[in-house]
C-alpha cells in the first residue's frame, strides 16, 4: 500500500474479484437456480447432398445438476436417411444394371453417371445417459450408456472417465475408456467378400437360390474399444488449452456389405462387380489439441487433430470458430459465429477406385468406398444465436460442406480417362436449436 504503483491495481483487482464473487448477471442466479431444474436443449438438423443423401436429425438433451455437483444427462436422438449414395462401382460409357442389396430388384444407372444406390431409407433412434459426480476433492467420475437402433443395426455401448484436478483446478488429467458392441443385420444378409454381384431377374425361379449362394450369413458383429487420455490447462485469464491422445481398436465385421468394386479390362470396361472386403480389425490413434481464447469480447476456438491407423490412413483436421457477440443488436445478447473446417485424409492401403481383371487374384482386401480413399474436405458455416424470453437461447446454423475425393496417383485406364472417377460431393447443412 505504500508504493503508488500497487495502488493503481487495487481498483481493477477488486473489480475482477467482485465479478468472481457475484458472477455474471446470468450465472450467479443460475448457480442457485440450476441446481434444481432441468436444462433442455432441443435441435433439428437437415443435411442434404446435391443429388445424393438427405438426412434429418433431431436431438433432445436434458441435463440436471443436483446438490454436490452431480450431473445427470439424458439424450434422445432420432434421425432418418433417404436418398442415394455411391455404391463403389465406376461410371461407364454404357448403361449399367446393379442388384439391390436385399436381392429384391435391380436398378439402372445411365451412361457416364456415377453409380448411386438409392435403396437407403432408414430411421434410427438413439438413447444416451451419462452420470457425472465428484468422488473426492478434485476427483470427478463420469459413466454412461448408449443404445442405438435402426432397422438393420443395433449398437450398445458403455463408457467411464476419471478426471483429476491440480493446482487450483488449473490443470486436469483425465483417463477414459468406452466399449461398443454392434450387431449388423443388413437386408439380404452379409455377402461373401470378393464374390461377384449377381445380376439377373429376381423373378426368375432360380434367383433366390443363386442369390443365397452369394451370401455368407444373415448378420455379423463388431466391437469398438476406445481409450482416451486428456490434459487440460488454464494458460491465463483469457486462455485454456486441451491435449488428448486416443487409441481405438475395432474388431469384427468392418466391411460395408452394400459396397462393390468394379473389375475392369485393359480398356476400362467393367467385366464384373465384386463385393468389397476390409480387414477384420482396425487400430486407430489420434492426437488432438485445442485452444480457446477470449479477446475483449470475441472468443476464438481452434483445434487440430492428427489421426493415423493400421490401414495406412492418416488425416489432418483443423477446426475453428470465432464467436462475435453483437450485444443487443438483433435480439437480446445475440452473437454470430463463423466456422471453418479443413480436413484431409490419405487412402487406406487397400483402397482402389477400380481393379483390373489381371490384378484380382491374390487380393485379400479391397474397397472402392471414397470415404476411405484420398480426400480433401472443407466446411464453411455461420451460426446466429439470440436470447428470447430473457433466458432461453434460439440459434440458427447454416453450413456448406464440400468433399473432394482424389485419385492418389493411380492412373485411370482406357475409357475411364473420360469419366469422372472421383466426383465432388457438396452438401448443405441447416440447424435450428432451442435451449430452455
Amino acid at each position, binding site marked *: 500500500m505504500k508504493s503508488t504503483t500497487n495502488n493503481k491495481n487495487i481498483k481493477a483487482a477488486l473489480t475482477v474479484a467482485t465479478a468472481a464473487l457475484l458472477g455474471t448477471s446470468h450465472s450467479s442466479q443460475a448457480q442457485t437456480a440450476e441446481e434444481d431444474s432441468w436444462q433442455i436443449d432441443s435441435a433439428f438438423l437437415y443435411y442434404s447432398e446435391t443429388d445424393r443423401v438427405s438426412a434429418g436429425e433431431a436431438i433432445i438433451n436434458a441435463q440436471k445438476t443436483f446438490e454436490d455437483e452431480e450431473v445427470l444427462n439424458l439424450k434422445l436422438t432420432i434421425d432418418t436417411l433417404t436418398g442415394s449414395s455411391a455404391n463403389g462401382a465406376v461410371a461407364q460409357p454404357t448403361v449399367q444394371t446393379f442388384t439391390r442389396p436385399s436381392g429384391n430388384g435391380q436398378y439402372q444407372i445411365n451412361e457416364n453417371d456415377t453409380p448411386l444406390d438409392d435403396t437407403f431409407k432408414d430411421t434410427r433412434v438413439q438413447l444416451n445417459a451419462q452420470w457425472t459426480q465428484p468422488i473426492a476433492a478434485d476427483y470427478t467420475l463420469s459413466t454412461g450408456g448408449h443404445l442405438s437402433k435402426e432397422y438393420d443395426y443395433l449398437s450398445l455401448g458403455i463408457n467411464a472417465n476419471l478426471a483429476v484436478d491440480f493446482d487450483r483446478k488449473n490443470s486436469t488429467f483425465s483417463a477414459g475408456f468406452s466399449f461398443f458392441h454392434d450387431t449388423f443385420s443388413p437386408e439380404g444378409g452379409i455377402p461373401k467378400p470378393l464374390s461377384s454381384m449377381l445380376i439377373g431377374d429376381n423373378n426368375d425361379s432360380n434367383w433366390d437360390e443363386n442369390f443365397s449362394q452369394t451370401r455368407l450369413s444373415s448378420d455379423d458383429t463388431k466391437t469398438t474399444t476406445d481409450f482416451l487420455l486428456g490434459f487440460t490447462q488454464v494458460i491465463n485469464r483469457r486462455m485454456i488449452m486441451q491435449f488428448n491422445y486416443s487409441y481405438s481398436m475395432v474388431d469384427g465385421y468392418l466391411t460395408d456389405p452394400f459396397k462393390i468394386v468394379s473389375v475392369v479390362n485393359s480398356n476400362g470396361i467393367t467385366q464384373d462387380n465384386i463385393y468389397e472386403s476390409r480387414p477384420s480389425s482396425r487400430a486407430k490413434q*489420434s492426437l488432438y489439441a485445442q485452444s480457446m481464447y477470449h479477446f475483449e469480447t470475441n472468443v476464438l476456438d481452434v483445434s487440430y487433430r492428427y489421426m*493415423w491407423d493400421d490401414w495406412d490412413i492418416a488425416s489432418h483436421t483443423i477446426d475453428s470458430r470465432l464467436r462475435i457477440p453483437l450485444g443487443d443488436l438483433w435480439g437480446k445478447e445475440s452473437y454470430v459465429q463463423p466456422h471453418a473446417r479443413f480436413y484431409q485424409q490419405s487412402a487406406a492401403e487397400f483402397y482402389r477406385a477400380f481393379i483390373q481383371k489381371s490384378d484380382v487374384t491374390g487380393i485379400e482386401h479391397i474397397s472402392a468406398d471414397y470415404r476411405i480413399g484420398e480426400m480433401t474436405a472443407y466446411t464453411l458455416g455461420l451460426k446466429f444465436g439470440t436470447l428470447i424470453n430473457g433466458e432461453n437461447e434460439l440459434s440458427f446454423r447454416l453450413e456448406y460442406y464440400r468433399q473432394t475425393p482424389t485419385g492418389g496417383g493411380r492412373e485411370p485406364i482406357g475409357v475411364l480417362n473420360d469419366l469422372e472417377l472421383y466426383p465432388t460431393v457438396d452438401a448443405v447443412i441447416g440447424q435450428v436449436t432451442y435451449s430452455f
Partner: protein
Amino acid sequence: MSFSQKIKTALLVMLVVSFSGCANLGVEPWERDLLAKKEMALNASPVDSALDDHIYFSKEASSGGKSFGGGGCGCN
C-alpha cells in the same frame, strides 16, 4: 523422418513443453470471470458437436479425438 513421424514428434513436444511450463500457468480462483463463461467451455455447444461428429463419422474415415469416437451407428 517421414512426415507423419514429424507430426507425431511435434505434437509430443508441444505436450512436454506445456507440461514443463505449468508452474507459471494458471489463474487464481477469483480470476475466472472470463473462463467461467459458457462460451469458454472446451465443448461450448455439445449439441452442435454431437450433430457434426455424426456427419463427419459417416462421411470421412476419422472419428473422435475430442471425445470417444466409438461405434454407435451403422451410418457408414
